[in-house]
């Protein structure tokens, strides 16, 4: 499963993203359970197809990919390693504690520029290049960048 990558953020694999929830045998069938990041995430179908492709490659004859909505995906599942990789890709990683509504609604986010590390950044738009990102700009190095928003 670590060989399946998110087509829109190709530095992260499906496990690091927290999309793959379980892999288990249901009798003779290998069941992979995945969960979408956003309800309408267009990458899900591709990720599912890629998983099937890999299973076939590995010689798994009986398999099934199930999708679940519970528990709802959260950016908290993203590993520290995944967060590091995002920074190297120029994407500010989500802050921890997405369950905190106050943080989400209160707009007190302190987002660090992934290029120069400055905290002097401002949100340009809540919605970015994909459903899971917002658009930010750094006031220090003037570069715009993506911020992986907390959900």
């Amino acid at each position, binding site marked *: 499963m670590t060989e399946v990558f998110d087509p829109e953020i190709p530095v992260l694999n499906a496990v690091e993203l927290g999309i793959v929830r379980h892999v288990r045998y249901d009798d003779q069938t290998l069941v992979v359970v995945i969960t979408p990041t956003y309800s309408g995430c267009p990458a899900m179908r591709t990720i599912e197809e890629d998983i099937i492709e890999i299973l076939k490659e590995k010689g798994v004859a009986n398999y099934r990919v199930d999708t679940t909505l*519970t528990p709802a995906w959260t950016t908290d599942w993203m590993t520290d390693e995944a967060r590091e990789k995002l920074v190297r890709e120029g994407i500010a990683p989500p802050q921890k504690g997405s369950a905190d509504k106050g943080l989400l*609604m209160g707009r007190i986010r302190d987002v660090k520029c992934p290029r120069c590390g400055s905290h002097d950044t401002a949100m340009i738009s*809540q*919605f970015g290049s994909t*459903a899971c990102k917002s658009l930010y700009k750094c006031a220090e190095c003037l570069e715009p960048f993506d911020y992986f928003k907390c959900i």
Partner: protein
Amino acid sequence: MQDNKYNFVLRLADDALILGQRLSEWCGHGPVLEEDIALSNTSLDYIGQATNLFKYAAELAADGRDEDALAFLRQESEYKNLLMLELPNGDYAFTIARQYLYSSFTLLYLTELANSSDSLLKGYAEKSIKEVRYHVQHASDWVLRMGDGTEESHNRIQTAIQQIWSYSGEFFEMDEVDQKAVDEGYGVDKASLRDAWQKAVTATLTEATLQVPESGWNQSGGRSGRHTEHMGFLLAEMQYLQRAYPGARW
């Protein structure tokens, strides 16, 4: 019993689909690039939510129709969405007014639906609420910006709120399907959300220096399949591909 749940789920699915379809019309037409992206993303959230709900509805119906058949191959009177959601987008103020009034309601609704005894509805609510929080924040930012902005923007958003207000009463209507869903533990008593909604909306509109319209006579009919004259045009566009090329996939 199954029938009632099917109808209940189908209404939610139709709401998400029709609003998603309307918002997708802004793709490539947004007033600025960021807003074009914002509304396209919001549309995607709704269409994703609709997909999840239609899958569930198809499972409940168990009559061989899949989620695509439910979404694209029904007749106008078989769609049960709220009338507000099928109205044409109008200008940006009108779209924002609708986004604001509707997502403020949806946030309250989903918070309650997250206590549903039905595990799929509960899962749907918990998932969608995270997305809708962003929709409310986005729409309220714009209500404030337009309301407390220039004379032109103030007038536009005030007019839009005024025009759309009579469609908001339908949010809180309870009929047999809703009541049965509440009695059986999976639905939401929508009438009880009215005060909280009115309070939240009044606070934002007041801050935006806007007048809160008087509530009076309300538009109604979506839940029983009686639509506005705009619905047929929307469906003609949305269903075209599946009607012209049945079973088309890509």
